[in-house]
């Protein structure tokens, strides 16, 4: 484990603890102002978690909208709907056994699903390339080397693991040379001793952009086979998601975006109307 991983883990656990504590406090606290501020903690933790997951844009959006808008709104509502004197014991709860059990069951089922039933790992797709009379199967993984990376998909944070599988090589194959090429950057190469099964080689510090890669199997006799990944833009390296999200919003999600903005407008108008002060005679 690298130190960055450990640090990352520690950060994660802290943030997680903060989020969980805040959530429990929201659920349990008898003081509504305290639960409002616990919610604040939860929201911030969520934003931090987004950052940890390298979803920088979302983290920023979270802080801006959720914390800056919604939470403020909630606090305003808290203030507006309570007499000051009541604030202390203003958040009673009626914990019934049904609710508690239901939530526990829910948690339990989610946990079970998450831990024991779901396969989050997805093996990479294989692409077969013929070269030198060999059938060469190409794969690509995310930086952790086990999560498959779809061809054309985006690599997580500039590191990628490339894989090759040749079952019966024609000749003697000793080494596999992975070469990743991006348009502007110089190629990155890594040499991995060949192994039966899947030979994986990791490349890191890749710049952003579309990368094309190839694998050369060589041995004592020289190059036995050379396999090119099918097309350019085999994988894309993104640092941060902002560009991606922007492209998505302006692309496939344009209509949704527009509709949501109109919806937002309508909601605000409706809210303004609903909360109007009735003229009492």
């Amino acid at each position, binding site marked *: 484990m690298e130190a960055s991983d450990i640090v990352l883990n520690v950060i994660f656990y802290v943030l997680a603890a903060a989020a969980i504590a805040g*959530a429990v406090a929201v659920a349990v606290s008898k003081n509504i102002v305290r639960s409002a501020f616990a919610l604040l903690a939860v929201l911030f933790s969520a934003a931090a*978690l987004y950052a940890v997951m390298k979803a920088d844009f979302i983290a920023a959006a979270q802080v801006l909208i959720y914390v800056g808008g919604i939470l403020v709104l909630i606090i305003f*509502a808290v203030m507006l709907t309570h007499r000051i004197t009541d604030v202390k014991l203003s958040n009673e709860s009626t914990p019934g056994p049904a609710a508690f059990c239901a939530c*526990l069951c829910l948690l339990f089922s989610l946990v079970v699903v998450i831990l024991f039933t779901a396969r989050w790992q997805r093996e990479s797709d294989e692409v077969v390339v013929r070269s030198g009379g060999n059938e060469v199967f190409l794969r690509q993984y995310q930086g952790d080397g086990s999560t498959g990376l779809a061809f054309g998909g985006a690599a997580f944070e500039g590191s990628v693991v490339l894989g090759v599988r040749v079952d019966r090589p024609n000749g003697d194959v000793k080494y596999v040379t992975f070469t990743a090429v991006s348009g502007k950057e110089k190629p990155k190469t890594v040499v991995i001793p060949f192994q039966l099964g899947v030979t994986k080689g990791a490349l890191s510090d890749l710049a952003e952009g579309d990368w094309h890669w190839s694998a050369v199997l060589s041995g004592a006799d020289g190059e036995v086979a050379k396999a090119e990944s099918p097309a350019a833009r085999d994988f894309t390296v993104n640092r941060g*998601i902002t560009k991606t999200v922007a492209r998505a919003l302006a692309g496939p999600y344009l209509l949704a975006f527009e509709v949501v903005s109109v919806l937002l407008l309508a909601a605000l108008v409706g809210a303004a109307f609903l909360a109007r002060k009735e003229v009492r005679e």
Partner: protein
Amino acid sequence: MIFTRHPLEHMLLLSAIVFCCGVYTILTRKNAVSILMGVELVLNAANINFVAFSQYTRIGGVHGNVFTIFVILLAAAEAAVALAIIIGMYQNFGKVDVDQADNMKE
């Protein structure tokens, strides 16, 4: 380390816990604003879920992130409307106790 598995699962577990806390808040609280806070918890847990899936497994691209953006937006709209209703409720009933807003009781 306790959890050496894929970090995605960490996130999912976290989001599950927060989700359940939010559901519990919704089910047990009397104060309407608290219930709204529970709803926010639920939404946030879902967001975390979305983002985790989107970031840790680039399956199909960045759709999870986009969805998260939308959820945040809609949560804002919904919070605004809900709070307007709560304000109205406060104005009509004098309190925001959902137990007492039972005009629909049989």
